């Protein structure tokens, strides 16, 4: 089975944010990690590969220096890594998905996996958009997947529970936490991954027209959130402290009791 995994690098959660001279989020010196939800997708891809004697290709759209996420996926066991380098072009989720779909449409695939959201932008769009552009079905937020030839039963989150959805391959699935426990790359895997080059595709090679990939969304301004300040720690014996706390809370916010 040919498995494609959509992956990207995101800021590490601990990263302190600052704005650059253009008022945009400054990426300089920020620690980057493989998006945790994409890690679930890589892991599931590897499990499917192992069951079906298949092949996993990980693909990302990003600047060339952000290869580490792909290298980590290869270290975990992915066979190929592909990076589409956009250069100077401003991208949004529509652009990224359109580009990914174009690249993928030239590849052989049975199943496409991705994380259901990225922890930096929290957008939850790209994988679904890729499915739409490839004209294949999508099932989001899966916590379990059972594949029988080209028939898939996927369990996915819904509010207050879960649904089991049946689709035929090829299809796109996005991973929710609980799908699996991602493996750590072995030392051997890491050494192998370092030696294996990431295949680079430059945006210009894809033959996409400018208006086809132009970003639809335009950021107007970025603002750093006000730091939440430490409040009052109420010092008193429990019963009195509780009484005081409740009084203060109800002065601050309206809670219907």
């Amino acid at each position, binding site marked *: 089975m040919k498995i494609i995994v959509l992956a990207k690098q995101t800021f590490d*959660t*601990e990263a302190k*944010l600052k704005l650059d001279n253009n008022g945009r*989020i400054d990426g300089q010196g920020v620690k980057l990690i493989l998006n*945790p939800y994409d890690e679930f997708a890589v892991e599931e891809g590897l499990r499917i590969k192992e069951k079906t004697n298949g092949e996993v290709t990980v693909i990302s759209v990003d600047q060339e220096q952000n290869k580490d996420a792909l290298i980590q996926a290869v270290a975990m066991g992915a066979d190929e890594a592909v990076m589409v380098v956009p250069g100077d072009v401003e991208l*949004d*989720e*529509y652009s990224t998905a359109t580009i990914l779909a174009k690249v993928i449409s030239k590849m052989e695939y049975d199943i496409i996996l991705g994380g259901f959201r990225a*922890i930096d932008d*929290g*957008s*939850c*769009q*790209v994988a*679904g*958009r890729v499915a*739409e552009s490839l004209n294949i*079905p*999508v*099932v*989001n937020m899966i916590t379990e997947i059972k594949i029988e030839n080209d028939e898939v039963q996927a369990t996915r989150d819904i*509010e*207050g*529970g*879960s*649904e*089991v*959805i*049946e689709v035929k391959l090829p299809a796109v699935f996005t991973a929710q*936490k*609980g799908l699996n426990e991602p493996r750590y790359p072995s030392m051997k895997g890491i050494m192998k991954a370092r030696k294996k080059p990431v295949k680079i595709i430059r945006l210009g090679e894809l033959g996409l027209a400018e208006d086809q990939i132009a*970003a*639809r*969304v*335009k*950021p*107007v*301004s*970025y*603002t750093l*959130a006000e730091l*939440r300040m*430490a*409040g*009052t*720690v*109420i*010092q008193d014996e*429990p019963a009195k*402290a*509780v*009484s005081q*706390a*409740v009084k*203060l*809370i109800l002065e*601050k*916010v309206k*809670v219907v*009791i």
Partner: protein
Amino acid sequence: MTKGIWVFVEHRENLIKKVVFETLSEARKIADQIEDELCAVLVGKSDDSMVESLSEYGVDKIYLAENDVLKTFTTDGYTNVMSDLIKRYEPRALLIGCTIYGRDLAAQVAQRLATGLLTDCTGIEVIDSQLVFTRPIYAGKATVKASCKTSPVIATIRPNTFAAVQNKKDPKIVKTVTDCGNIRQVVIDAVRQVSQRPELTEANVVVTGGRGIKGPENFKLLEELADVLGGAVGASRASVDAGWAPHSMQVGQTGKTVSPTLYIACGVSGAIQHFAGMSSSKCIFAINNDPEANIFKIADYGIVGDLFEVVPLLTEEFKKLKTSS
């Protein structure tokens, strides 16, 4: 020239989701500002009570796209119908509650129409006749304001952000016939926990148990407190990883994002990843026996103490106020 601000009406078993009324209320203000029409779009199954509910929230027009096949949500079915309606009527904007189905629908429709989508928005404003949406990024550490160059702009709206404001109108009802197209997702089973408590993402009060809760049976204490306040019960990653609570209760970066009026963190250390899921809480109250716990750096009020002693006292205190009011 009016084009229409559309709000998608998510519903289940004849009940319209709260976020729809919240979105309609905010969209009404925008519609007034730019002198456009506010329209609700109800797909699948409508009945008089649903139409009645919608007319309480300032709607100028209600599109009804009734279809038995669409009684329950499927990504394909709803995408086909919504895309079709948009191509036909060309609204300026489509607003969808940022729920699980809402996110599914928004991404598919946006790509089909080759347009932009702003997810999980916490603000809408008009700047130079353009709709500008505010959304949190980087786990709430920053926000971005963005607009869309193409029409329609699609945005999903974070639940519990805007107030639902009643505003009775007499909307025009437009019945439309749509083709639900080929639906490739087949729902073969659905399991829903029946709970009297509100959904975490919609709750006004959330009581969360962290590592300090020490075991699944102790959540009972938090449930009693939550019930007095009509709230929901959440769990930190530590509790979920320890197997004391299911992942569906997890609040945080790899769990749910909640925006309650009151967030009570019991035995929660307050790691940044947890904060990512509750930073927009209006009031945070923490109970932890460790005075150095990070949670106290972000909580509005805190008590350093044993949650097994403090939580029952809290429940009692709120109960007292309840009976006296």
